[in-house]
């Protein structure tokens, strides 16, 4: 561990030197002895996990660990963390953006698809791009956007009218846009894209609208489609399993489903299966790992007989072709929307016999952290439940049946982080008691299609927690309760810290080894977005958006707040 840190320090120093040179040389003519430093090379993207200057991927690096290698801000000095600057966007609404930082330039997005480039040292605006929205937008859970991807001289983002857009990173001018799918049918984009080599990768929303989900790869230069992986295969029936991945009975009526299948045929065309969050990328094996969301309609299984492959699953595909490699389904024929959304993480884990193997972690809405073998997607173990589970699996009824967790989780779309030294994963959770009501209606041609409703029980207490799980054993290492259900994301750092925010405006730092609270700041609006970190001119920053959340109705705002150590 020690040698790791000193080599990171060396990287930091080198890059700082380079940054200074770039600033001087730019006056002379744009490029430097070192090349154009604003431009993001594949090697930078590949090595992001060890880059203590930049924050180049939505989840930190291709493995999506959200473990930041800089340690200038650490357990001993985090008490001196103060706001360095606050930037206010034009849009006072729900914020889920992960700030991306490239050599001192920060890119953030807002609700309704505005994109900003800021000076990461001062918060000064460099440019502002407002997407010209088409007449048809769709969203189930707020007009959100979770940020940009960067590569070369371009910035990429997805839109509520289901487009993928490339901007010039220097000016914010649009270079190209591609219609990903038909918005009238319920397709839309809120996730940040990912870039690998010449491909921009993106999934789709629409699991609440009867879409057929996918992950697509587009050419970074032209926006042309390179491949599509349909998250729902034409044969979506599966093996009629009656148990979830943890072995609990789901009370499926297999006979009724088989009869429905004979009568209605395979439901794959409108079966949902959105992909809400970025894939983890393994360049060694050239494979992607992502999780697929719920089947459509959410609560009504009568119209979609079968296991509904590959909804509610971890899926791995070939990076170059998008071809299927393996999957593991957490919940077959889900009727609770307890689907898979939080982005998977690749890291070394202990297998059942105690050997180190390449693993994949996913934090489920069920409240379990699932630990997979990366090789064949198989489940090695699942953690203790991080939130109360009651009466799983009670089927939804016409009157509404109570079951815990509620449909938002457990872990919602919020990315987890890990600390590979402690071998801990960090997740933020919701406890939100709900009733599940089913009401069957035919496919409404692109309109909201839940097949019923999930309703929060207003008299029951709601809360959240931050939970550290030892992924080698599945045991909870520590857990801290929060006043409200948690949604947003978390960042771990080599300073021995985790940072995460709450709906009441509090942004906190915890000791990543034991959960002790070390610092807090009141942001004035819900902090419901994943934090990032970066270093400019030798100074490490933590940055987070405070814009509240539409889904949980947390107080809206429009702030990007960067923190650094007081002198």
């Amino acid at each position: 561990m020690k040698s790791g840190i000193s080599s990171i320090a060396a990287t930091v120093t080198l890059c700082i030197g380079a940054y200074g040179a770039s600033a001087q040389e730019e006056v002379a003519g744009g490029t430097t002895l070192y090349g154009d430093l604003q431009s993001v090379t594949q090697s930078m993207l590949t090595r992001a996990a060890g880059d203590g200057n930049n924050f180049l991927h939505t989840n930190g690096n291709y493995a999506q660990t959200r473990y930041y290698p800089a340690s200038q801000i650490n357990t001993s000095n985090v008490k001196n963390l103060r706001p360095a600057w606050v930037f206010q966007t034009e849009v006072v609404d729900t914020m889920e953006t992960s700030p991306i930082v490239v050599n001192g330039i920060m890119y953030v997005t807002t609700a309704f698809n505005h994109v900003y480039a800021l000076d990461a040292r001062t918060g000064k605006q460099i440019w502002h791009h407002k997407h010209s929205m088409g007449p048809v937008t769709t969203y189930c859970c707020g007009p959100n956007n979770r940020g940009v991807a960067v590569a070369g001289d371009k910035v990429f983002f997805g839109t509520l009218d289901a487009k993928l857009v490339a901007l010039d990173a220097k000016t914010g001018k649009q270079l190209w846009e591609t219609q990903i799918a038909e918005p009238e049918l319920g397709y839309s984009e809120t996730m940040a894209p990912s870039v690998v080599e010449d491909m921009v990768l993106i999934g789709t929303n629409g699991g609440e609208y009867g879409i057929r989900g996918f992950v697509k790869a587009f050419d970074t230069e032209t926006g042309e489609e390179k491949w599509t992986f349909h998250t729902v295969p034409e044969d979506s029936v599966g093996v009629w399993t009656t148990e979830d991945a943890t072995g609990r009975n789901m009370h499926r009526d297999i006979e009724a489903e088989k009869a429905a299948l004979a009568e209605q045929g395979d439901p794959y065309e409108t079966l949902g299966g959105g992909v809400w969050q970025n894939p983890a990328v393994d360049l060694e094996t050239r494979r992607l790992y992502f999780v697929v969301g719920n089947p459509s309609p959410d609560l009504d299984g009568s119209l979609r007989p079968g296991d509904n492959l590959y909804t509610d699953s971890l899926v791995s595909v070939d990076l170059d072709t998008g071809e299927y490699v393996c999957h593991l389904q957490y919940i077959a024929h889900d009727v609770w929307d307890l689907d898979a959304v939080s982005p998977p993480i690749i890291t070394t884990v202990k297998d059942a016999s105690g050997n180190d193997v390449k693993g994949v972690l996913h934090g489920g809405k069920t409240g379990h952290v699932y630990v997979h073998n990366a090789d064949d997607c198989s489940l090695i173990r699942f953690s203790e439940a991080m939130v109360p589970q009651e009466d799983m699996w009670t089927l939804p009824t016409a009157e509404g049946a109570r079951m815990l967790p509620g449909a938002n989780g457990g872990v919602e779309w919020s990315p987890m982080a890990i600390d590979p030294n402690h071998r801990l994963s960090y997740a933020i959770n919701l406890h939100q008691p709900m009733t599940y009501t089913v009401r069957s209606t035919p496919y409404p041609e692109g309109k909201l299609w839940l097949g019923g409703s999930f309703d929060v029980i207003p008299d029951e207490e709601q809360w959240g927690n931050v939970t550290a799980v030892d992924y080698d054993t599945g045991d909870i290492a520590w857990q801290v309760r929060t006043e409200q259900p948690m949604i947003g994301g978390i960042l771990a750092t080599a300073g021995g810290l985790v940072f995460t925010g709450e709906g009441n405006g509090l942004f906190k730092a915890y000791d990543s080894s034991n959960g002790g609270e070390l610092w807090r700041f009141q942001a004035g609006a819900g902090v419901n977005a994943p934090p990032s970190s970066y270093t400019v001119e030798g100074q490490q920053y933590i940055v987070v958006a405070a814009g509240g959340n539409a889904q949980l109705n947390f107080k809206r705002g429009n702030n990007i707040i960067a923190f650094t150590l007081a002198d």
Partner: protein
Amino acid sequence: MRLPFVALTLSLAASPVLAMEDFVLEDEVALCMSCHGDAGVPIEPDYPVIWGQQYFYIYTQLRDYGAGRRQNDIMTPVAAEYDRDQAKLLAEHFAALAWPDIPAEIQDGDEQLAERGITGGQCSACHGKWQGDSRIPRLAGQQVGYLRKTMLDFKNEVRMNAPDKISTMKQLDEETIDALSRYLATIDIQ
């Protein structure tokens, strides 16, 4: 990507709505205004404001009335006259007008009841700050009488074109629906 397009085309072809011959936008607009008001304020308290409503929402409602997915003795025959393009022209016209200012009053305790209903139904997930967007209607400043009527129509399974709203509204009692109607009618977003 090809399959969804096919599905869309099919569904359009299946629509019973035929084009109105000699459609003149101004004449049709005049007809609409005879009920929805010539300055945006509808002639009856339980008629909805459509001036400044969301374009795609107006369009889908006209299509739904026309095809019988939303049943209403007044609007169904009106909307059944128009084809897709004509419905779009009407929607464009009304979406571009200014939302009227209609005075409404909130009562003691309304806000608490409304907030409770909003939390239970997770309304803000789609409705945000009630400003509307594309397929989601603006509700802020809508007529109290209409808000009440349409929520009760969902609850009582009269309005069927947003079926998931039926489950949501069934969870709310009439008192909450009354409070919500007054609460939404008094939200000022201008």
